[in-house]
């Protein structure tokens, strides 16, 4: 992912959550771009521990009133965003794909649903993706469903609701593999 993509995601999140203080926005955007300078590639897999640690750190800092939480959150978001985007193996295609991602717009729900229907994917898959968009909106209630059984044990052992949700989404994403990169 090009450096401007995670910072764009971070900026959109600030807008959505009503974060207006410059320092907080700067910390979130800074955190979301820092992992690329640490050379700990690849970021698309094997970063669960980093995601977990930074989310917990962000939450604990937030509860203590420490604004460094935005920096930790930014780091976690970088790894999450990278994990949720596919990666062509050839380097020239990878760069091209990164540019495409960087130029792609962040859509509202109705436009995203329309884009899903317009994509050249089977109707059943498109329906799944549209439901997925709605599921994401429902927050913790998405934990109710048959996917829950699959991830319950692992998530419970970590006793952590956010990862619970992430793992659930990961499980769903796996079942939709090969579709999201279109």
């Amino acid at each position, binding site marked *: 992912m090009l450096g401007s*993509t995670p910072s764009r*995601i971070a900026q*959109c*999140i600030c807008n*959505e*959550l009503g*974060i207006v203080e410059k320092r907080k926005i700067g910390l979130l955007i800074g955190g979301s771009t820092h992992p690329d300078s640490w050379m700990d590639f690849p970021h698309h897999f094997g970063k669960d521990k980093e995601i977990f640690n930074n*989310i*917990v750190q*962000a*939450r*604990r800092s*937030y*509860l*203590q009133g420490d604004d460094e*939480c935005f920096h930790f*959150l930014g780091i*976690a*978001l970088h790894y*999450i*965003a990278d994990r*949720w*985007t*596919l990666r062509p193996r050839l380097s020239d295609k990878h760069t091209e794909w990164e540019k*495409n*991602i960087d130029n*792609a*717009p*962040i*859509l509202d729900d109705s436009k*995203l649903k329309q*884009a*899903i229907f317009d*994509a050249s994917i089977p109707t059943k898959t498109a329906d799944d*993706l549209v439901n*997925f*968009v709605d599921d*994401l909106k429902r*927050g*913790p209630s998405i934990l109710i469903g048959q996917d829950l059984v699959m991830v319950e044990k692992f998530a419970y052992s970590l*006793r*952590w*609701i*956010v990862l619970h*949700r*992430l793992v659930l*989404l990961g499980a769903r*994403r796996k079942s939709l593999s090969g*579709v*999201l*990169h*279109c």
Partner: protein
Amino acid sequence: MLDLNFAYRICLEVSKAIIVQPPVSDPEFYPKAQKLQEKVNNFPESYIEKTWIYEKLHEIADISKMIEYMRVSVSPKAPRPQELLWLIGHNYFHIEEINVPVKAKKKVKILKMQGFLKKKELEKEEIVEETVEKTISRLHLYPLRQWRYPRALIQGYIDFQFGLAARYVLDRLKWIVNNPNCLERQFARTPMQGDYGVGSADPDGQSPCIRWSNFINIEVPVQNHLELLYKQYEADKANLEEVKNDPLTWF
């Protein structure tokens, strides 16, 4: 394009979960929750009180049986428990609830004929001995194997009449294992790992152990204090779980 939009939405959901204020207005909520977590993590040490009455492990559990077991069942040449180090890693000890026959005295009423000239039936109370089944808690222990006795020792056990006491000893051993400042915790190499040696450092791959003398002198609160201790601990643990699993207060 879909990739980016899904990535954004997931990042947004995670951010919402983190940037959420607990509904409680208490500014001390998090420090309190942190303290509670520390207390629960430091169980049972953090729950014991100086004013309580304590008994040593060898006063409440039958340790003679273990020596007998090792001498008779394992090998007459088996070393005494005090000559060995006992493994206290989490794989090495567990409690088993077993039923054992116990001789108990019981009062019974017996009808007896009494009288010299005129026999009369009289009800009398007598004490008789009978065998009853009793559930006891057996704490299994594994000694650190030594080159001298590579096969002789398999395991030993100690019986507790009171199950909560066995549970406490087990929890105490777990605390000893996890507490780097605890002087009772020692580390030793097993014969499989090379030379046998003991130290108080925590080198990689060495097994945490306890000396027999330290083990049998573990102080256990008396029954009513133990019940109080576990009641408090269970309540705190449940409270902490609730806070940690709530989407608004998790940490």
